[in-house]
């Protein structure tokens, strides 16, 4: 039997954050893969069709904004929704995320119920 669960790529340099989001999304019915930075995420997106990206902002090698811009570029061109989750809550952070191509920007921490709800809405094509 094939796995019909929506595929999510969790992108964060912090191992505990990846584990946290993996656990919450797995419990909510998603198939979860991980990447530790933007470059790994882009490489993964070139070989796998994900249904959702959950991306941090501050990461080594390629930050979250650059990652989203690359995912939206002609090179990758993925239409999958992007949820950015960051510790950054400065004025303008969300605007920067949306300008890069993110669908939604949330500030950490995001509780289990909210993350599951937002992930379901984004993968269903509903603006969260």
């Amino acid at each position, binding site marked *: 039997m094939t796995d019909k669960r929506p595929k999510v790529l969790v992108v964060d340099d912090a*191992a*505990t954050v990846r584990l*946290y989001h993996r656990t919450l999304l797995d419990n909510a019915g998603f198939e979860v893969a991980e990447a530790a930075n933007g470059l790994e995420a882009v490489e993964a997106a070139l070989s796998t069709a994900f249904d959702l990206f959950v991306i941090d902002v*501050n*990461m080594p090698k390629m930050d*979250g904004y*650059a990652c989203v811009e690359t995912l939206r570029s002609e090179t990758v061109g993925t239409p999958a929704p992007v949820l950015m989750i960051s510790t950054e809550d400065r004025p*303008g952070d969300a605007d*920067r995320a949306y300008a890069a191509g993110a669908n939604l920007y949330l500030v*950490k921490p995001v509780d289990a119920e909210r993350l599951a709800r937002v992930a379901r809405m984004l993968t269903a094509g509903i603006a969260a």
Partner: protein
Amino acid sequence: MGLVRRDAPPPEETAAPPTTGTLMRQLDDADPDCRREAALGLGGVAEAVPALLRRIAVETEPLVRDAVLTTLAAHDTAKVADGLGGHLASDDAGLRTAAAEALATMPVSVPAIIPGLLTDPDHDVRVMTAMVLADLPHPESQAWLAQMIAEDAHPNVVTAAIDALLPSLGPEHHDLLRAAVQRFPDDPFLRFTVEAALR
């Protein structure tokens, strides 16, 4: 047919290496490759540090930025640490994370700026400081991270410090982690992080 002796080719003219002044001017060249070459060519040139610090504040090309930071970090001086420490508050995510990576390779000069970073009023700067301490090869790094976990008022800073300390966590840290959960009982991620660390 016998071998034909050819005249030896004339020696190639070798250009003189660019002067420090030329390289410093090339840091502002319109061509990113030229700027990158200039940054790398200024390795070990102390008088170029101010120009490199000015460049890193405005550089947007990742490859050039990496070259400038590599050259700056190799100096590992107070001036460079102060200059790069200021970029931990940058609105440019690429710059602040690249600055954090560079600072983590400067164990001589960075310890002097850590006390100031730990008390920075911007909690995002303190989160970035945890990223620096995660990789800073210094005997006090773990103690500073433990201090952040015990005392910082923002849960995102505490969880960043826990994540940074994770590779070296031992039984001696368990009470510290439990106390952090008690300080932020309503933070689900912090609780999850501590439970994962205690497993």
